[in-house]
């Protein structure tokens, strides 16, 4: 018995030791990552310096609130004045959530530097939904939403990423009566809820990106342009994640691509759907090769495209990927794919091309790059714009009451990094190929580390490069 006890005690001691070692290793690695995280440094990237270097103060159209080029990012606190609280709700350890947080921080800093809103400073609170991980259930997002409203007392919610999570969060809005400015999810059903039952769901607004129908419109427009400049590349293989948003988009592509002169060579003249979160794409790439495709119309919202693009480049599949690839919008994508992203062509908001379309975009791009040492993705400018949209509404309404703010948010008409922001009756940001009339899209091609080149619309397009193995 004594021996057994001492054996068990030894085992317990070893167990404790193992836990301590694992914790220590995790701590050291985490510290390493935190200490080398982009936001902690202040040097600009090479691409950032190529952006317009204008540092003058720029007024946001029709808001009365100014953006400034400050020399340091710091939280502005006030004494004795109750701050107005904006809640950032998203996957805060993922690049989409990090960019939401940083885009919002930048806007809040600018607004606070000019006296805040209604004489009160803005402050941000954060709740992590972890929704970038497809295995995380919707309920995690709902719990985070509950906390951000009832515990953190957010008066406006900014964020969202996964459409299923945001759709569930939208269902909670009649209860909370807090404006929700979506900066990640693009499913059109989100806006349809607003139309179907306005009094309940009027709190929802889709700021960025444009909705999935508009994304499809932009993509089809690009394919038409591509056919004009490269008329010999007509065989398209549609490769898509097996998720609802792409199932809705594929029939649209099936209808329009043949009208533009393309032949769809994927199985059955439809799409080759692969499971969300796939890690091995040898089967798909083999099928693309044997189909004789010259273009891969890629539709991907998850991180699986990292491996897909690597496999494509490693196997030198003679078809160029051109489509919607959310992961590829991240500046980290080049590194994640070890440079295999070269030649991939993706749809982005026109404010994210690296060639700002207006001075607001240039200042945003420059400040963001300077302070966070990385390039913004769509969630960053969406959150940046959202803070200004909400601040403008509060300023005009003279209150932070959620229901009272809705008419003012609906009347938003301001210029942001992606063009002019207005909302339609479904509370989706209005898409327009002309960025002076709406939120515009662009197609960009990865050409080097931290750099992609716009290849559409024609006003900003440079020639598209084809892989040498095509």
């Amino acid at each position, binding site marked *: 018995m004594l021996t057994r006890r001492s054996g*068990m005690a030894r*085992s*317990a001691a*070893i*167990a404790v*030791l*193992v*836990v301590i070692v*694992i914790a220590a290793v*995790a701590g050291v*690695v*985490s510290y390493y*990552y935190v200490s080398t995280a982009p936001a902690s440094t202040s040097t600009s990237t090479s691409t950032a310096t190529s952006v317009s270097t204008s540092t003058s103060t720029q007024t946001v159209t029709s808001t009365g609130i100014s953006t400034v080029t400050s020399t340091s990012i710091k939280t502005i606190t006030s004494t004795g004045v109750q701050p107005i609280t904006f809640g950032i709700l998203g*996957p805060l*350890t*993922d*690049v989409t959530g990090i960019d939401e947080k940083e885009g919002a921080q930048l806007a809040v800093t600018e607004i606070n530097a000019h006296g805040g809103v209604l004489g009160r400073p803005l402050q941000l609170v954060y709740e992590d939904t*972890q929704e*970038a*991980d497809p*295995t995380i259930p919707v309920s995690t997002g709902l719990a985070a939403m509950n906390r951000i409203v009832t515990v953190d007392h957010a008066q406006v919610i900014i964020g969202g990423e996964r459409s299923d999570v945001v759709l569930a969060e939208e269902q909670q809005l009649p209860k909370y009566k807090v404006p929700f400015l979506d900066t990640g999810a693009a499913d059109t059903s989100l806006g349809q809820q607003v139309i179907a039952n306005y009094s309940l769901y009027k709190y929802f607004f889709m700021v960025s990106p444009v909705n999935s129908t508009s994304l499809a419109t932009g993509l089809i427009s690009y394919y038409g342009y591509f056919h004009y400049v490269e008329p010999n590349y007509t065989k398209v293989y549609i490769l898509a994640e*097996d998720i609802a948003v792409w199932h809705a988009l594929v029939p649209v592509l099936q209808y329009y691509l043949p009208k533009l002169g393309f032949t769809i060579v994927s199985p059955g003249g439809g799409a*080759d*759907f*692969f*499971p969300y979160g*796939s*890690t*091995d794409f*040898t*089967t*798909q790439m*083999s*099928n693309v*090769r*044997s189909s004789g495709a010259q273009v891969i119309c890629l539709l991907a919202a998850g*991180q699986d495209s*990292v*491996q897909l693009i*690597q*496999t494509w480049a*490693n*196997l*030198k599949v003679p078809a160029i990927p051109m489509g919607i690839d959310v992961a590829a919008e991240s500046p980290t994508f080049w590194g*994640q*794919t*070890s440079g295999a992203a070269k030649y991939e062509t993706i749809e982005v908001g026109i404010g994210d091309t690296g060639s700002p379309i207006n001075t607001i975009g240039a200042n945003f791009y420059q400040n963001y790059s300077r302070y966070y040492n990385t390039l913004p993705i769509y969630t960053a400018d969406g959150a940046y714009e959202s803070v200004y949209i909400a601040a403008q509404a509060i300023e005009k309404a003279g209150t932070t009451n959620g229901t009272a703010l809705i008419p003012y948010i609906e009347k938003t008409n301001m210029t942001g990094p992606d063009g002019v922001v207005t909302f339609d009756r479904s509370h989706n940001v209005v898409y327009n190929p002309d960025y002076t009339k709406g939120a515009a899209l662009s197609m960009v091609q990865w050409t080097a580390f931290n750099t992609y080149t716009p290849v559409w619309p024609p006003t900003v397009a440079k020639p598209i490069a084809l892989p040498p193995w095509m």
Partner: protein
Amino acid sequence: MVLPEIFVFGGLLGAVYALLSLGFSLSYGVARILNLAHGSFYMIGGYVYYVFLTLSGVNSVGSLLLAVALTFLLGIALYLGLVRPVRTAPVRVLLITLSAAIVAQEVVSLAFGDRGVGASFIIGGISAPFGVVVENQRILAAGVSLAMFLCVWLLIRFTKLGRAVRAVAQDAEAASLMGINDTRISLITLGLSGATAGLAGALLGPLTGISPDAWLNATVVAFAVVILGGLGSIPGTFLAAFLVSYSQIVVAFEVSSSYEIIVPLAVIAVAVLVRPKGLLGRVEE
């Protein structure tokens, strides 16, 4: 039917599945430990390879060896720290190894983020066996996996240590009475189990990417292979690995890759219902 593609891809995948599942089979066959954290060794092996290669500047072969060494030690640590105190209670073993796997996922997720990482290949370029274009890394992964599998099998079959392992697998109590230290044998087995899965992760990780949740699929595949092959049977594991991989590839090519993931789960269900002892396994009570 695209036979060359199915033949090549199924064969290359099967070799890695065999290595991945070998340790799972051994740890049950020898130590009677149904280790649900087995896939964690695969995941950690991939991350160790990534960390040393990408962040520490160690070359690819060195990173691979370090992945094997560290997962070997981790296998021993898992046994000593968590499994040994409860090893006589199978349900508690299942629970504690499952918990360990989830903790490992969370720790890795905290350190490296939810999204996966990718690492450079050990060997670049492509080849076209039977006219099918594949990465050389994939061929290397299959070759190393087969070689490692063969080495472990030879070790178990023809060495003194292997005889001791087989003795413990047959009857731990009798082996103990004959002077064999069954704890030491279990330690070595768990270490070997970790190292083989870690090697599989380091070899396949650069091809598939490696993410904190990669352990789950790896565990499911290993589970399916070992259930089908027969718990504890090394030849059965080898045979079943190829059956599972070919089934997956046929489904991916001829039906849809969306259903590929169902194959191992279906294999587990069918094997348990139709032939619980597996293809070449002993009858289990």
